[in-house]
């Protein structure tokens, strides 16, 4: 269905002439006497509805179904329809017989049954004592055409959004006229009148911004006559009056015939189909321990049964086709409906079904007991699987009923063979052999990055929509996020958690900074006490890195993490400053040696990453390399550590961290490897000229591509960071 098909706008024109006050002659007994009280009481005479009442309640039922299935200009899946109902009616006053009453507008707020009921009550029933000569349905029809030219909110939005291709927004509509016509000639007269009005209105619309010309109009004229009378108007299938106007005539007796006619029409007009849920177990009021099986009929978009229609398992004639073929002698008691069986094993809501469509439903008989039992059951949050009734063979579950936020949807489940069956397992692909992913940590990360609806009215000073802010948060949270346990030390330490949680925030409070600083002091304390760290020694032989080396790795990593955020605010920077001030620096030599090893790794990344990321990448690489080179014993199980862990013996605690920074080497014997590498490095350095960058580096850092900065101004650095 196109967005702006004739179903986008529907105008109801209900005749309010004195004749409509006539009784439909269908009587309703509303005084049902119970046996015990029956003696001596005269039951109340049955009441009967007027033609007007019949017309109004059936058109309201049409709207009820419509608003249930298409509550907005857009429904879930496939088609979008904005349903606008005008109940236009024609009031006859002796003074001005040209009056008509518009009950609502195309505004979205006006589109509800409650609004319409209220407006209808204000109009009241027709007055049978008015002069019938003075009123005509024509006034209402003219007003209907005029209203079709008025632009709806969705049309306006789309036209504004499309700008230069605004002409793609079409204007089509349908007029449903409930009246009591005098004869076939009278009907023809009404059609001609509408045709002329359309032409006139289109001329008007051509010169106006607020109006749109009508491209297509469908007139559905329903002639209503009381029970027991003969009709003066004959049925006529849809025919084209002009390229702009088609017209069809239905002649129906008031009462239940009219109701089922409008029920068929609403299905035709809005591509609806019917499903009957059978075998619904329901507790009997009288016999609470038994349950009888009930059926409930639901209406919904046809596409929920696309599979049936296509595969030919079920072939109802399309209501529309049937009518167009001219065989409108369809009997009312004959109903096309797809039967689906209630399926007892209930589904739980943590299962993700493969669902190819979800369509809003409306029960045909909304306040019958079986219907309300079913809808209440669903509205309470339970879901029901539905299966296709089959005489034999396996059972096929094809649909599911489920409610979301007070709306019930019929979900279409895929019941065919999947084209994705037997895929290679994720453990067979890239990264599949790695076993120490930080699954739990990433789970925690996901929970922190869950989404929540934000009121459209809430305005953010950054001017970003909420979803962009969500992405920005993801970016901040992942600036430094090692994927596997053996790649990280700090994220395996409880002691770092407070800092790690706070530093990713967009802004920090003074208190946050204090917490971060405390975390750092705590680490310093741990180092002083020589607490063991959960350093990974995967694949290493021997004892693994020395404890002071472990702390060096930990501090490096912490610095890397904080550095990626230091640019955000001054407070972030203060946290970094605190770390730099507190950590014990390795001697220059050590640092240089490390850099020599990792140069190759760094170079191919340097282009892609900004300078900051480059550092953390190279850090990771170097640590990994180290892990591979310095083979040590596996004792990586120490994940938890705390300042309370027993202090190792025979280590002399340092008194003050800041003042004592003994050279690394003094703290223990040098490993054979570092002796060897030092020697090689020294020998190599003699063979080549030192890089300019390294010679003139400050604190072992040298800014690359300085000339770019001069050429392009200050943006370079920013760009380098942004482009990933």
């Amino acid at each position, binding site marked *: 269905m196109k967005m702006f098909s004739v179903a986008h706008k529907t105008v109801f024109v209900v005749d309010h002439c004195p004749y409509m006050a006539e009784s439909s002659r269908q009587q309703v007994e509303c005084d049902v006497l119970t046996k015990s009280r029956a003696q001596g009481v005269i039951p109340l005479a049955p009441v009967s509805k007027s033609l007007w009442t019949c017309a109004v309640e059936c058109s309201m039922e049409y709207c009820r179904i419509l608003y249930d299935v298409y509550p907005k200009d857009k429904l879930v899946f496939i088609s979008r329809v904005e349903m606008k109902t005008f109940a236009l009616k024609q009031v006859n006053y002796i003074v001005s017989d040209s009056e008509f009453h518009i009950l609502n507008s195309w505004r979205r707020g006006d589109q509800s049954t409650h609004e319409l009921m209220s407006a209808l009550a204000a109009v009241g029933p027709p007055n049978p004592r008015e002069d019938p000569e003075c009123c005509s349905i024509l006034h209402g029809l003219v007003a209907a055409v005029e209203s079709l030219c008025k632009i709806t909110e969705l049309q306006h939005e789309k036209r504004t959004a499309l700008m230069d291709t605004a002409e793609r927004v079409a204007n089509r509509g349908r007029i449903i006229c409930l009246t009591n016509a005098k004869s076939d000639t009278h009907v023809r007269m009404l059609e001609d009148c509408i045709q002329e009005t359309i032409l006139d209105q289109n001329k008007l619309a051509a010169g106006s911004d607020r109006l749109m010309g009508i491209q297509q109009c469908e007139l559905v004229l329903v002639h209503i006559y009381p029970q027991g009378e003969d009709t003066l108007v004959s049925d006529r299938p849809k025919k084209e009056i002009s390229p702009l106007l088609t017209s069809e005539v239905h002649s129906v007796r008031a009462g239940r015939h009219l109701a089922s006619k409008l029920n068929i029409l609403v299905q035709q007009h809005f591509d609806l189909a019917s499903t009957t849920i059978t075998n619904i177990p329901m507790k009997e009021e009288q016999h609470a321990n038994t349950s009888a099986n009930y059926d409930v009929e639901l209406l919904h978009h046809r596409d929920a049964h696309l599979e049936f229609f296509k595969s030919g398992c079920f072939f109802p004639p399309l209501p529309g086709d049937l009518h167009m073929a001219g065989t409108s002698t369809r009997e009312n008691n004959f109903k096309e409906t797809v039967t689906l069986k209630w399926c007892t094993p209930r589904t739980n809501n943590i299962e993700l079904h493969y669902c190819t469509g979800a369509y809003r439903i409306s029960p045909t008989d909304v*306040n019958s007991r079986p219907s309300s039992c079913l809808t209440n059951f669903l509205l309470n949050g339970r879901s029901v699987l539905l299966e296709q009734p089959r005489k034999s063979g396996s059972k096929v579950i094809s649909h599911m009923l489920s409610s979301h936020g007070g709306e*019930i949807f019929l979900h279409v489940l895929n019941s065919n063979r999947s084209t994705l069956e037997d895929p290679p397992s994720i453990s067979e692909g890239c990264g599949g052999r790695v076993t120490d992913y930080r699954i739990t940590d990433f789970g925690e990360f996901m929970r922190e990055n869950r989404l929540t609806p934000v009121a459209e009215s809430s305005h953010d000073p950054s001017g970003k929509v909420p979803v962009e802010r969500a992405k920005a948060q993801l970016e901040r949270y992942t600036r430094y996020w090692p994927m596997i346990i053996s790649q990280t030390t700090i994220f395996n330490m409880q002691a770092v958690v407070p800092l790690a949680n706070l530093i990713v925030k967009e802004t920090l409070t003074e208190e946050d900074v204090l917490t971060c600083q405390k975390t750092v002091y705590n680490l310093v304390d741990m180092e002083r006490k020589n607490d063991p760290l959960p350093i990974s020694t995967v694949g290493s032989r021997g004892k693994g890195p020395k404890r002071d080396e472990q702390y060096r790795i930990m501090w490096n990593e912490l610095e890397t993490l904080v550095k990626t955020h230091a640019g955000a605010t001054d407070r972030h920077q203060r946290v970094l400053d605190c770390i730099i001030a507190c950590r014990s620096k390795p001697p220059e030599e050590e640092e240089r040696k490390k850099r020599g090893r990792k140069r190759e790794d760094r170079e191919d990344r340097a282009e892609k990453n900004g300078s900051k990321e480059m550092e953390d990448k190279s850090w990771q690489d170097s640590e990994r390399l180290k892990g591979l080179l310095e083979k040590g014993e596996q004792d990586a199980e120490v994940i938890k550590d705390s300042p309370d862990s027993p202090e190792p013996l025979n280590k002399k605690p340092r008194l003050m961290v800041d003042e004592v920074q003994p050279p690394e080497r003094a703290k223990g014997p040098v490993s054979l490897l570092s002796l060897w590498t030092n020697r090689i490095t020294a020998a190599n350095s003699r063979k080549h000229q030192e890089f300019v960058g390294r010679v003139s580096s400050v604190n072992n850092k040298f800014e690359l591509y300085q000339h770019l900065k001069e050429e392009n101004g200050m943006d370079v650095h920013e760009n380098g960071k942004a482009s990933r």
Partner: protein
Amino acid sequence: MPTVVLMDVSLSMTRPVSLDGSEEFQRKNLAVHGLNMLFEHMASNYRLEFTALMAFSSLWELLVPFTRDYNALQEALSSLEDYDKTCIEAALNGVNNVVQQEWGSGCPCQVVLVTDGSLGIGKGSLRHSLQTLKHRGEDKKFPLPFPFPTKLYILCIANSEELQMTDAMDNLEHLLCLSGGDGQIFTMEGPLCMKSVQTMFGRLIDHAYSPFHAVLHCGNLSSDVQVFPRPEPMVVDEEVEPMPRAVSTDLEIVGFIEIADISSPPVISRHLVLPIAVNKDVDEVGAAATDELEDEPSATQMAGKSPNFCVLLHGSLKVEGMVALVQLGPEWYGMLYSQADSKKKSNLMMSLFEPGSEPLPWLGKITYLGPVSEAAENPYGEDDSKSPFPVQPPAKRSYAQNVTVWIKASGLQADVQKILRNARKLPDKTQTFYKELNRMRKAALAFGFLELLKGVADLLERECTLLPDSAHPDAAFQLSHAAQQLKLASTGDSQYADFDHNIAPMHTDFSS
């Protein structure tokens, strides 16, 4: 998206191709060569595709049912026999049967029709089929369009000049149009030889069988992935937005949602998200086939050992029971989740939602989903006991708001009886009595059913007279008050018949 290869094995396919070389080729040989190339490509780059091979002349035969075993397909190609004349309509009926039997009518399929452009003669020829299109009964309908969405690729072992000399080209174009217009006709350029047939199949491969590579991002974490099957461009509304939308090659995670909250959403397609090795940036069809045998084991082993974001994401999604919401392009979203096969295998899967800003009503507009950290208090509660989803629509549906419908007499009777039942239990049920009374009153006024108001007033008055001696004195007061109010409303006088007015219980000395 499964593929059916429909190979013409009519006699005309055995026509020799004039070549300057010594070897003599038939058109059939060229076709087989091209198809072999296609199958080789699929085996190495598109191996999850299910493909079936059918041969047809005046009859059709399913040579290889849907399989991923490309050797079997190639073997079948090598043992093709020659038959009589071309009859495309029968073959298409065959395709229809085979596909529907295997995949049902909802699964999109690709049909690769390989023929030589001589489309049969007389009855059963394509020309005849197309001419008689409009004069057919329900039972003998032309098989196109298929009930399932189809992409029809017609590969002609002939060049376009040859096809245009007869009406073959027109007929093929008509055929493509009948199938829904999605697809393409490929012809050979230059002389009929191995090289030009390779070029033609190469074009088909580029068009329809090149793997879809993308980068999955989650902030700074990312992974190169192949999305299988290829996500197809999508036309939202041919009138307002006629240009198809394509899935971006940058898939950006925007956040995470619990499975219970997203609750089985409708999707337009499902795709496997397979992580791929980073350095494999060029997928040369020819080169890859030869090198791969030696290089691949070690390459995959290396790739298996280096950590990949997809694996991490998959593991956590599975453990936590969550999905990741992923942006596929402007106003187009999907979700990533862990999909378990029946066995131990599980996989990272991506489902695409309908394009648009609000694909799921219960999530609201996606652009208005923000991070939890911004909310004043955690909408999930401190212990994850709550959820901000589903988003409630502004208006309740009819079945959730106790509407009044009197189309069936039983509906009206039930409402009247409910009032009477409560009337007999006054004053205990005063609130319910007036609530039901006012509901009935509102509906009667809206429907212009004033006669009913009068009737119910009479009923209430009768109830009043029938009150037992033991009844509370308040009951009589309330009943006559209610009856009187209804009578006033039934006059239709705007003073008493205001829709928004409610009849309030009468204040008596007893009610306190």
